[in-house]
């Protein structure tokens, strides 16, 4: 028995999100999930670290390789499926959540993963993303956020900071950015988490928590683009500053930021970062990822202002509600149980008929 990051207790290899997926007899190793394709990201790309973490994580699922499907859209991150030896669809720009929805809803025996980016998932595919989250389809969405368009060579993205100078915004972009975690929470997501490409251990623990969640899970992964937006997350990578800025959320534990600071309730339902000494240890909020009301998780997601002062990572929210695919398949099973399987000849002859001799 192990405790996951989201506070769920589970037996090794028995993840709640994989309830209907067959168990594997094979003891997989990381190499079993590497495809024979040459990886074609730029040198130094954060995607390499995520891929390696993911490949080494997949054996933990404990399901047959053939029951795992990777679905992606368009963009650098969306090349991901080619580098894994599972089933995969490298689809069209922004549509991966829709394609994955059809697949997951019709095949509950599959573990379906969507790999997307800030442009693919939040700009051209924003509509599909929010609807997949609210429906709670049993898919895992990994959104690699590098805050720039990489594959089209460096235009600002929906998560780029306002005023960003890029090829398409030579005097500064006018767009106010999305906070992907806030957006997912607003879209009624039942599981929302954030992690960073450079922290393999944390990344793996978040992936595991996502797989353990029945229904749609949304994971924002801060990912560095060394070519077009290098050091976008530098404030979080410098070892000295990192621990003062990263708020590592663990279910049931007090929310602490470095040795001196912590999170307490603020005015108007918000949260505040304060010196622990000034309020006392007891006032610190103990993180509760299972709160039904998304207000608390939303307040956590807003702590990241001004940018990178204090950045929560880990699981913001993990609540249970019926999944779309379960409900859909239940309706089919109920109809069959109540009235039997459909019979074609009877269907065609339903309604008023008459006979001509």
């Amino acid at each position: 028995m192990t405790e996951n990051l989201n506070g769920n207790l589970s037996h090794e290899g028995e993840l709640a999100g994989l309830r209907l997926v067959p168990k594997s007899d094979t003891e997989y190793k990381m190499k079993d999930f590497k495809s024979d394709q040459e990886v074609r990201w730029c040198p130094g790309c954060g995607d390499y670290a995520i891929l390696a973490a993911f490949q080494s994580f997949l054996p933990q699922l404990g399901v047959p390789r053939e029951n795992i499907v990777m679905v992606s859209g368009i963009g650098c991150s969306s090349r991901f499926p080619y580098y894994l030896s599972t089933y995969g669809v490298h689809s069209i720009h922004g549509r991966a959540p829709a394609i994955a929805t059809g697949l997951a809803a019709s095949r509950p025996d599959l573990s379906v993963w969507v790999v997307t980016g800030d442009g693919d998932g939040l700009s051209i595919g924003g509509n599909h993303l929010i609807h997949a989250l609210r429906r709670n389809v049993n898919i895992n969405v990994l959104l690699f956020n590098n805050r720039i368009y990489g594959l089209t060579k460096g235009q600002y993205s929906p998560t780029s900071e306002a005023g960003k100078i890029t090829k398409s915004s030579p005097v500064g972009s006018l767009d106010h950015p999305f906070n992907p975690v806030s957006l997912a929470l607003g879209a009624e997501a039942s599981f929302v988490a954030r992690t960073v490409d450079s922290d393999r251990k944390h990344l793996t623990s978040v992936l595991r928590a996502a797989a353990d969640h029945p229904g749609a899970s949304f994971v924002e992964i801060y990912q560095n683009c060394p070519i077009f937006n290098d050091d976008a997350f530098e404030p979080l990578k410098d070892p000295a500053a990192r621990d003062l800025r990263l708020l590592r959320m663990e279910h049931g534990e007090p929310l602490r930021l470095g040795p001196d600071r912590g999170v307490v309730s603020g005015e108007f339902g918000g949260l505040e970062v304060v010196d622990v000494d000034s309020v006392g240890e007891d006032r610190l909020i103990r993180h509760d990822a299972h709160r039904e009301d998304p207000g608390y998780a939303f307040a956590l997601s807003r702590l990241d202002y001004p940018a990178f002062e204090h950045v929560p990572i880990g699981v913001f929210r993990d609540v249970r509600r019926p999944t779309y695919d379960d409900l859909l398949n239940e309706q089919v099973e109920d109809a069959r149980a109540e009235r039997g399987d459909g019979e074609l000849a009877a269907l065609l002859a339903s309604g008023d008929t008459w006979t001509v001799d």
Partner: protein
Amino acid sequence: MAKQIEQLDRVIIRFAGDSGDGMQLTGDRFTQETASFGNDLSTLPNFPAEIRAPAGTLPGVSSFQLHFADHDIMTPGDAPDVLVAMNPAALKANLGDLPRGATIIVNTDEFTKRSLAKVGYAVDPLTDGTLDAFKVSAVGLTSMTVAALADSDISKKDAQRAKNMFALGLLSWMYNRPTEGTTSFLKSKFASKPDILAANLTAFQAGWNFGETTEDFAVSYEIKPARLPAGTYRNITGNLATAYGLIAGSQQSGLPLFLGSYPITPASDILHELSRHKRFGVRTFQAEDEIAGVGAALGAAFGGSLGVTTTSGPGMVLKQEAVGLAVMTELPLVIIDVQRAGPSTGMPTKTEQTDLLMALFGRNGESPLPVVAPSSPADCFDAALEATRLAVKYRTPVVVLSDGYLANGSEPWRLPQVSELPVIEPGFATEPNGAGGEFLPYLRDEETLARPWAVPGTAGLEHRIGGIEKHSETGDISYTPDNHDLMVRTRQAKVDAIARDIPELEVSDPTGDAKVLVLGWGGTYGSITAGVRRVRRAGGRVAQAHLRHLNPFPANLGEVLRSYDRVVVPEINLGQLSLLLRGRFLVDVIGYNKVRGLPFKAEELADVLQEVVDRD
């Protein structure tokens, strides 16, 4: 008093009223009565896109036309013999379509000064001689309905609403229709509202009784059942037949049906119908938009379902990107496009045949796919089933081009024997197909050129597909020039080769020496056939053929076209098939094109054909 019964061989009735007057329901019930009596029939509902347009206005008029006969008929009829007008707007909007001598039954209660003024009648047309050329029956439909329900507990407003049942009762008497179907329909529809049920039954009976007793209607009519081929029949609309055809495709292939769809006029009824049939393993997904509808269907197809999406023109435009992905990934997918008048929003409830070129060419790159078109409401069943067969056998998206007229129109359908429906073999890949024991997802079947369909969950066949050009065997990303050229040509060759798997074009030419051919496609079959019959009855020689397959064309199409001196191609567009025929076969066909949102009339096509025949 025993009334006289007159025999007729056919009648065209049009019910017209406000869009809130229940004209579609009235027409539909009269149709069901007529179908169960055994007449051949064809219907044309015509209604505004607005759900409740302002009452009493011309744009708010909703109508339902029904043509029924004691013989085989092809169209809903050119001009009504009988118009039932529930208000001045309905009279004004439809009067121009009536031939001299037609019967008009008007609801006089609605002919008030205010209602008349609303549609620009300064003087009451019932009294100023406007209708002198017609046989007018002025009936107080509303007041008589209210009077019949005087003892009922329902409100006056509810009583007035039952006037359409009074009208239906009256017409049912006039044409000696069986009424049991309507009685049981009302009982089931209003099972939970006994007061409303009683009111509707009373109004229906009162309308019948009024016809039988009043001296205003001296004659009733009888139209004997039609002599149709032996079999069991039901009346069916195009959308219902499409839904049944898709379920049949699922049953005959053993593939669970997954429909991804977004509501759109006039295709929504297919979504509604399929959502009722979960017992057949049908999963319907009402998506957030048209793109997600087709995307989810394609995702389900990757997982081994029969993926289907349904839409109309504006939605078809949005789906094309994903359809292109289906072309590239070579997965089975059925796309139903119920065409409506465009461009843009156009006229949502009106018919058109303007999506042919979009279906064929509306995607980026060389993106071939098969296109099939039903020719009548009942034929939508066969077209949907044929689309499924082609999609599964050739691992390709297939577009079905229905239209608004077929979708909402209805006709008797002789039920097929399920045992005679084609069996569709999915033929999933289960074993590696490479020489070295590897799986090659683009290694093709030599005969069909179809690639293997390996679904997730199949061990050893894990593979990645997508929209990027693929190596011709391994499916790996490939940008090499020769590979792309080969793949573009192979995708085209696969679709072209389907010509070997579809019937040759049949030509009807009773005298065998016609010099003029009329060639149509899709929903115009009925009008063209009726036009051809008229020409032939007048002694004109004209051959007729109709295309079910728009891509690929039947193998003998070029030969057929070249066997005639002149080829006439009527289309409800500005010449889309004509463009294809000229480009493909260098035959200078004569287009006849109208885009009024309505089907062709038999008479206008007869005139056009006669004129071309007379050119000799």
